């Protein structure tokens, strides 16, 4: 499968440039299909069409899931996720960090965060996971190794500049709220970066809409509920339109419904194009929302890969003092890693 844009002219360009594609499609002894990032068929060969039991012409423009209702949705979701992610946005090589008091918090960490993906950084308290992500927006500088964002070293860029690319939402919204009104609070980031008043207003509306708080402009940020304050915090980071959004333990202090609500919001942001990094040890959140996971233990990344791959390795997770959600363990015991109860149902009830 080849990752291609659905833009017609680009596709035409591709077809022209890779005229070989015609040859390959015609001659290959296997079924071949070309998808766009939404898993819509762009092109199929005869073999593929035969396998699907649908005429070639009927494939064009239709989604895989639509054409093949029997295809397990989890596989489709994974496909979708892999297709949508792009080139590495953050590159970590041999990263070490030693605190001024001598403690070695990170040692030899290698990691790549790709554009558009939803990464979970997992680990117990004190494992170094927060130390790791604080390098991404320049709050911490490596004492060994390198961290590059958009190809440039973080030490060259500095916190101020990186804040434009990598937004960091801290765990406790009360650690940043200081304004009289919600819109003042959200406007802080854009204003400080010197944007025009009209632009700032637009960003504020956009950000509030994205977090589901439109109409809250004149509200007292200190008087909102914890979940609402958290949204305000996310909105104020979003207003700067960063490419990456880091959320440190976004579910802390929220009840289950609020946690769901918050994570659904985060997923929406990811689907709209933001690269998301969530630092957490709440396993069901990772299972149901993240694409890829990196497990941190004692300052080292001991496991990384897709969530499904990582959750299949229960022994290594246990080593890192983590345990997958019960449904995942159950799936593992049955031989297939599922990520949620819904998925388990889908897989077992597949018609």
């Amino acid at each position, binding site marked *: 499968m080849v990752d291609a844009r659905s833009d017609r002219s680009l596709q035409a360009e591709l077809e022209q440039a890779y005229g070989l594609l015609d040859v390959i499609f015609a001659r290959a002894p296997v079924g071949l299909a070309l998808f766009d990032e939404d898993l819509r068929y762009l092109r199929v060969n005869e073999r593929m069409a035969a396998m699907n039991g649908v005429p070639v012409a009927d494939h064009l423009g239709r989604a895989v899931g639509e054409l093949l209702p029997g295809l397990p949705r989890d596989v489709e979701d994974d496909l979708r996720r892999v297709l949508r992610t792009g080139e590495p946005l953050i590159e970590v090589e041999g990263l070490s960090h030693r605190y001024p008091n001598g403690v070695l918090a990170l040692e030899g960490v290698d990691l790549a965060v790709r554009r558009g993906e939803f990464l979970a950084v997992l680990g117990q308290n004190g494992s170094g996971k927060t130390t790791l992500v604080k390098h991404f927006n320049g709050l911490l500088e490596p004492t060994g190794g390198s961290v590059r964002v958009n190809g440039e070293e973080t030490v060259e860029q500095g916190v101020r500049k990186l804040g434009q690319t990598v937004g960091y939402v801290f765990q406790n919204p009360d650690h940043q709220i*200081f*304004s*009289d009104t919600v819109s003042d609070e959200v406007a802080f980031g854009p204003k400080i970066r010197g944007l025009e008043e009209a632009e700032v207003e637009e960003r504020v509306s956009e950000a509030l809409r994205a977090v589901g708080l439109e109409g809250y402009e004149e509200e*007292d940020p*200190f*008087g909102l509920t914890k979940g609402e304050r958290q949204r305000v915090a996310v909105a104020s980071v979003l207003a700067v339109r960063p490419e990456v959004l880091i959320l440190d333990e976004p579910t802390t202090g929220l009840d289950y419904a609020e946690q769901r609500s918050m994570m659904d919001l985060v997923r929406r942001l990811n689907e709209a194009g933001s690269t998301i990094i969530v630092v957490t040890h709440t396993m069901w959140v990772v299972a149901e929302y993240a694409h890829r996971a990196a497990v941190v233990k004692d300052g080292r990344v001991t496991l990384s890969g897709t969530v499904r791959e990582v959750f299949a390795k229960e022994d290594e997770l246990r080593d890192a003092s983590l345990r997958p959600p019960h449904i995942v363990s159950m799936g593992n015991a049955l031989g297939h890693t599922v990520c949620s109860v819904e998925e388990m149902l889908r897989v077992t009830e597949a018609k």
Partner: protein
Amino acid sequence: MREIFTMWRHTQMVVLVALTAAIYAAFLIVSQFLVIVPGFTNLRPGNVFPFVFGLLFGPAGAWGAAIGNLINDFFGTLGLGSIFGFVGNFFLGFLPYKMWHAYFRRDENMEPNVNSGKKLAVFVAIAILASIVCAVWIAWFNDLLGNVPFAVLGTIISLNNAIVGVILGPILLLVLYPRVKRWGLLWTEIMEPDEVPAARMKTVGNVLVWVGGVGALVLGLILGSAAGGAPGGLGVGLGLIPFLILILVGSFLLGGREQVEAAHEETDTMQSS
């Protein structure tokens, strides 16, 4: 001055003393890295807190400012001068709430939420005076001990506190007042009118504090500067005492019960309507 003792009956006030002291101390300690006259004073944004604490939390804020400064001294400069560091910072939090009501008539709104031109002017005036009084206490004692010349500390402390107080105070009060009120933590609402002495000749008290504070500063600067050529520290040490007494007397006269009554009236009318 009775309220600084009666306040201890209220658990919330006790807690506020601890919390305000911790906040003030934490900020002071951290800004020990921005030093002007090392060991004695630094340029610190945290210096705005005593004014805010005093206006919002009354006597609890005054104690908190004093204790907070003492704790800060624990981290390097604990010495005999710390005694008057305690007194000076106490006044930094004490005078704002004591003097505030002296500028308003009974029927005017005297809530410390700096949202009018008059309130802003009153705040600026009080902040400057409180800074001067704080400086006078500390500089006087350190000069008496022979540690630091009055002129040095007197000016530095006055300026440090006044500058920071005037720039940051109004903004902070504007944002913090409504929330503190909503949480029910204003001193005027926690304490009872009979726990606070009534003002006797509050205008006189007001004037006395001004005369005492500014007078002490001016006299100290004149006596203590090299150009004055005064024979030895005792000139400053003794010469300022009358002014210090004026400050104390003025503070006694100021009372403060009116604010508590006003606050309680408001809640009563709200409850009965």
